[in-house]
């Protein structure tokens, strides 16, 4: 069974009536793969800095875009999305850089 991530569409901006747009309903997506990236844990008086990165590989038409919240292996991250699409066949996939940073260290 494929590992899953949870994506919450980003809030932000205003609709045409001037009302703030609320976050969308979280959706659970199966991944093609999840690759661990850099991690950093730095103790500090003002709170520990905890920085974790993942690279998540998804199907091409997965509902995710930049700045969506994505939960990967229990970490709440911010998504940055790259779309790979073959110009000949239309096949490809999404590469999502997910980064979670809490605290400030120092």
């Amino acid at each position, binding site marked *: 069974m494929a590992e899953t991530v949870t994506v919450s569409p980003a809030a932000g901006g205003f609709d045409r009536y001037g009302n703030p747009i609320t976050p969308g309903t979280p959706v659970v997506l199966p991944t093609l793969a999840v690759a661990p990236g850099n991690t950093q844990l730095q103790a500090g008086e003002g709170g520990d800095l905890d920085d974790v990165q993942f690279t998540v590989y998804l199907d091409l038409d997965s509902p995710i875009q930049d700045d969506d919240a994505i939960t990967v292996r229990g970490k709440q991250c911010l998504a940055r999305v790259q779309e790979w699409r073959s110009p000949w*066949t*239309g096949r490809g*996939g999404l590469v999502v850089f997910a980064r979670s940073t809490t605290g400030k260290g120092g």
Partner: protein
Amino acid sequence: MADLTTQDVDAFTNGRLAHDAAQTARLLAAGLGAARRYCGWHVTPPNADVVTLDGPGSPLLVLPTLRLVSLTGVVEEGITADLAYVDWSVRGLLRKRTGYAGGDYGLGHCWTAKLGGLTVSMNHGFAEAPEWQSAVLSYIDRTSLAASVGGRETVGPFSFPGTTVASGTAFTDSEKMLLDLYRLEPSV
């Protein structure tokens, strides 16, 4: 079920092959043609057909079908047979009954041995052949990609495997397995 349409191809490929594109119609015609040529008959849907056959010279006449819906006419060496004296099966097998008056060539109730000596009119074909249609759609989807890039394709970090076809055919093993369910026995 009606014959496959470009709408079916559009749905199967999630819109990659648009139903109103000329290429889709061409690929559909090629796919249906390849599958029907491999199977030896049109398979689906049921329709009226007139075939001219070589006489077997034996009591059993095997029609090029796997689903005979109705037999509408048999002409043997120019003589129209009385169908009341012809037994036929859904499988497409014909035998003469005692009393057959359309001409009795050869021994007993044998059919003529003349090449091209029989003309048969019939309605035949499966009303439903979902496995066959699925194989045709798979073939169309695959060949539409292969026409552009060939086998294996790598797109950034994503890699898509190529497909290998079964020996002596244009179809993969899984497509061939489905088509074989509807294929006539190859003549010797």
